[in-house]
């Protein structure tokens, strides 16, 4: 029983990260009917930005190097011991990292929308897809060539010692650690917040209207460009947060870390019904559980095969995904 529960915990944690990324995919699809392949690179950028922020806030070497160039940042040095010393400091640092990462990745998302997708608003459906693929390839290689020349980064020792990241710290026999709780809790909280935002606020209403019919929404006085830009801020921001979690959870960031999670999260979004926020969340957690449990009880080598077979089976019986609306018939 313990073994099952332990694998359950693994699965839910993994699912939390997949769910966060899937939210990004589903939001963009809902508004633009487009699969944003560059989203996996948002995830990766989030991890890198998170690492950079971490180094900036806590690493003596980095701070000295930066302060030579930008002396007005030297007040960070004094904060360093606060951040790395106490638990409260660590928590605040983590929150800062998450916030910085989310904002910057959101901006990156808006940039890609502005330059790569907006010109293609009225082009055939496949054009933005290819553009997204191009952006993805570009970002991967950009990070490879300019930022991570040959070695994948590893989390510096100061953080590894911290209770937040140390997976064996407060280890119950089920492996429930502070970081895992944080990941799952954040995902669920963000989903609830997002759900309320879309359902209850005016901006949310604008987003729903735009996803139903762009032209009509424009006629109703909604600034469609702003709404789409906002979507491309929120979605990638969530992906960036997931990236920070991934970096913290596994302790490493590499230039192609976004690829597999991206595909799996997109699959999760489809399983749940693409375009549907709750479906993405459900799909994400389901996928995480399927992955863990199939590794635990069937075969680790075939875990991806099992995942996709289940996807196909679900789609055969519910062609619109689990929570998706039945496919719209053009009459």
């Amino acid at each position: 029983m313990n073994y099952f529960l332990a694998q359950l915990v693994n699965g839910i944690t993994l699912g939390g990260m997949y769910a966060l990324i899937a939210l990004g995919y589903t939001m963009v699809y809902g508004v633009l009917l487009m699969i944003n392949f560059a989203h996996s690179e948002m995830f990766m950028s989030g991890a890198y930005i998170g690492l950079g922020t971490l180094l900036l806030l806590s690493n003596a070497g980095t701070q000295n190097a930066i302060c030579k160039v930008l002396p007005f940042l030297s007040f960070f040095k004094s904060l360093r011991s606060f951040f790395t010393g106490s638990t409260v400091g660590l928590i605040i640092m983590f929150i800062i990292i998450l916030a910085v990462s989310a904002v910057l990745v959101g901006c990156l998302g808006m940039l890609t929308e502005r330059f790569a997708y907006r010109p293609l608003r009225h082009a055939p459906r496949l054009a933005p897809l290819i553009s997204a693929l191009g952006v993805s390839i570009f970002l991967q290689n950009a990070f490879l060539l300019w930022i991570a020349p040959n070695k994948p980064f590893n989390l510096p020792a100061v953080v590894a010692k911290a209770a937040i990241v140390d997976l064996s710290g407060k280890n119950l026999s089920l492996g429930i650690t502070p970081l895992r709780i944080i990941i799952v809790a954040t995902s669920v909280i963000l989903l609830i917040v997002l759900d309320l935002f879309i359902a209850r606020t005016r901006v949310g209403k604008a987003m729903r209207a735009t996803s139903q019919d762009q032209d009509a929404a424009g006629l109703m006085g909604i600034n469609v460009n702003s709404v789409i830009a906002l979507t491309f801020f929120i979605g990638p921001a969530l992906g960036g947060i997931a990236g920070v979690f991934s970096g913290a959870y596994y302790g490493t960031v590499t230039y192609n870390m976004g690829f597999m999670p991206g595909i799996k999260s997109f699959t999760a979004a489809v399983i749940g019904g693409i375009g549907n926020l709750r479906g993405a969340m459900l799909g994400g957690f389901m996928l995480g559980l399927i992955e863990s449990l199939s590794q635990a009880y069937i075969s680790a080598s075939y875990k991806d095969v099992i995942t996709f077979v289940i996807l196909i089976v679900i789609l055969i019986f519910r062609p619109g995904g689990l929570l998706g609306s039945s496919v719209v018939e053009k009459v």
Partner: protein
Amino acid sequence: MKKNHRIVFGVMAALLTLALILTGCGSGGGSGSTTKTFNVGFGGPITQGDVAFGQGGLRAVQLAIANANKSQEAKDLKIQFKVIQGDDQSLADVGTTVANQFVSDKSMVGAVAHFNSTVSIAASKVYHENNFVQISYGSTNPALTQQGFKNVFRTCATDDLQGPTGANRATALGFKSVALIDDSSPYGQGLVAAFKDQFVKNGGTVVYQASTQQKQNDFTAVVTKIASVKPDLVYFGGTYAPDTGAGALLCKQLKSGGVTVPMMGGDGLYAPEFISGAGATAAEGSYATCPGMPVELLPNGKQFAADYTAMFPGQQPAPFDAYAYDAANAIINATYSVAKDLGVNKVTSPAGKDALIKAVAASNFDGVTGKVSFDSKGDPNNKVITLYKVVNGKWEAQADK
């Protein structure tokens, strides 16, 4: 003509003309100076795939070339060397394209190529057809040298040597049950298969076997499973690098997941980055086998390490880099000997290429990994395999009991 037709014809005509110009002028790039420059090719995964090993090998070959260019022998023969990189991205078809590029180069004397077994095997057919020296520095699949190609060599040990040695050492250390993990690479699968055979023959039991995927970084489910079956040892076939086999990540997650037994692997784990990647506490007590004598015991080894860190500050040599260095030197020495026999200008003629292959086959010099010489199949004669253990955050050679 249709507008579309015109575009197509125009583009194709332009491309063909370009290609013809390129090839037409291909022979015109001769130099008039008195030193002859020879190219040594390096084929490896530089931008994608097993990037750590590709870039490390490249650095080693660059070091070998730099040392050779400074040497007295090169000055006497008026030869200089240059490295030409070929990025094969760990993919067999890209590697074959790289091979084609190398064999088209009239000044190239040989290639240190490739790292991944599938790439080397696919590319070897091109090298063989063109009578071109190929020395692999990281392909461990026995199939490479079983093809009967006289121009194919390797300086690293094969899986069917490293696996059983590891198994024997493991049994000798008292491990009776093992969990086998491989990273779905040909290297990993081959190593694990060879280890398993010998381990079972020695009376050990395999309590769990699984494959992880390349680029996978979530091993939590596998770790939990291993924790529940409680083996004496976890044997990992694969590389340490997080963007491919992720051995270092596995080690870290094993320890965080409460698995206290040591992890053991092959030369894919034996690198300083394994320790820094997994964290010194997690990596403590891990084992790895690696062909060749321990570096400290070899005079050339220490010099190599010193030169390496001097030329590339911040980088440390890994075992595959040492194989690449020896491979490059085998080609360099063969060039010297053929230049002496046939004259500098005949080195890349058809007769010269034959002579180069024979010279490499007859190599016999002191390299960084020990004495460098090849048997009739092209495998290295150096069959020493050392076991290393992480002690106090560093790899230490373990003497045979």
